[in-house]
């Protein structure tokens, strides 16, 4: 049998999925062991037990000066910025995508502009944003919005254009106005794609968020990582990295669940 036609059975499939994680964990443990054996004060690869201790401390012990648990404060601040930026980007791209996809006038006027805009490297704009919006929340949220909106807009407008023309014509023969076609034919079919887009863009959104926080902030997950970097506090950095990864995974998982629950018609044919 050809390799492309062979797939693992259930227990083996689970084992295969777990294998890379286990391999990385083991490799890290060995590396850490070797370095700590040579120099017990080594900070580069803290022992897994040390990381666990640090993690428990970070999640539970309040800061001595402010009396707050910094990790939760950082998490709340970062998530607020992330969701704010992604939310604004999603809404903007939905509106622009529908306009471009449905209305020839908007298509002529906007699609070239959006295409060019999506070529601008957002991080290069970061200094401008800080100059224009100051060092507060606005600049960080705007960076996320600028970073992911053009791509999402391009994809969504293409998806609207991909709706079979027969459906648009059919709706017209049922007496639908432009507005009704947008709201009742295009929008419901584009929403699942919007969520898929948000899922795809979250990676970039995290990137822009952490970059902005690293440059200028006084709270936030990215800010904390770059702060403790000065003390080579690898245990703290690694805890934060794992935490961010977990958050990203949970958000992605929630969005996937939402798609499945909210759009039952998508799975009707499967």
């Amino acid at each position, binding site marked *: 049998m050809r390799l492309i036609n062979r797939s693992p059975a259930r227990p083996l499939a689970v084992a295969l999925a777990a294998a890379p994680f286990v391999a990385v964990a083991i490799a890290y443990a060995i590396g850490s062991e070797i370095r700590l054996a040579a120099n017990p004060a080594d900070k580069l690869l803290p022992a897994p037990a040390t990381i666990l201790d640090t993690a428990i401390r970070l999640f539970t012990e309040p800061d001595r000066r402010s009396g707050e648990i910094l990790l939760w404060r950082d998490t709340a601040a970062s998530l607020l910025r992330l969701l704010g930026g992604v939310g604004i980007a999603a809404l903007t791209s939905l509106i622009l995508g529908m306009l471009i996809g449905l209305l020839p006038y908007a298509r002529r006027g906007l699609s070239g502009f959006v295409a060019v805009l999506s070529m601008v490297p957002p991080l290069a704009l970061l200094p401008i944003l800080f100059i224009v919006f100051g060092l507060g929340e606005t600049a960080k949220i705007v960076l996320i919005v600028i970073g992911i909106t053009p791509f999402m807009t391009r994809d969504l407008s293409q998806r609207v254009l991909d709706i*079979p023309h*027969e*459906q648009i*014509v*059919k*709706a*017209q*023969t*049922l*007496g*639908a*106005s432009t*507005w*009704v076609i947008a*709201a*009742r*034919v295009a929008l*419901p*079919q584009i929403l699942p794609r919007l969520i898929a887009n948000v899922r795809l863009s979250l990676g970039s959104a995290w990137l822009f968020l952490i970059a902005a926080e690293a440059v200028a902030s006084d709270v936030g997950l990215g800010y904390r990582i770059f702060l403790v970097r000065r003390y080579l506090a690898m245990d703290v950095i690694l805890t934060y990295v794992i935490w961010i990864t977990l958050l990203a995974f949970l958000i992605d998982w929630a969005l996937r669940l939402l798609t499945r629950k909210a*759009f*039952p*018609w998508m799975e*009707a*044919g499967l």
Partner: protein
Amino acid sequence: MSFVSVRDVFQSYGNRPILERVNLDVAEGEFISIVGASGCGKSTFLRMLLAEEQPTRGAITIDGGAPAVEPGLERGVVFQKYSVFPHLTVRQNIVAGEGFQTASGRLRGAKRREALDRADAMLDRIGLNHVADQYPASLSGGMQQRLAIGQALTAKPRILLLDEPFGALDPGTRLSMHQFLTELRAETKMTVFMVTHDLEEGFKLGDRVLVFDKPRWDPHDPGAFGATITYDFDARDRGIPFQRILDLYPSLARAS
């Protein structure tokens, strides 16, 4: 005065003529089958009847009205595929035939309940009651086309346009669809245009069978001329004309 009148209609894309000098008069309630070689412009003709596109010359009018500039309630359509909305259930698809006409696209309150009752009656008629709450993707091809026809009829169009509506169905399903369409026609007396590649189907269902073909042919440049209606068969009474001439002209009977 004919119901649908097509006057000297030309259509070309770029400088490539597709249809030329098409003339046609159709009486209300007639069933017109359209046949012809692939790519000769049958769908193009249907799109112009639908007002999805405008002829480069000539005009198409319904009941003496002004030529339409875009598709609307007057003309219903069923394509070979993609004629129903995948994100609406079967029942919602039927209700859309009424709801899409409103400003918001939705019916509310008493109007909605009445529309739902009518939708259930329609579902009964097209035999889709048992799948009313399913999504179109889970239906068979024949059921989807029945739904598409039911949906189009709900909007009460004056003419119904069918572009190879049964082209993707197996022969058995096709036969039951013929039955279904014949019954619907007997009830609604609607004017129907149907494009088909199946001559037998065309003659069986149609009152007239139109053949689209190129009247002129340049062997050095096959695209030089467009197609037009080259034959207009009377397909009533199994394609044997003058069967009912005595009903039409009783004086002839007296004479003999």
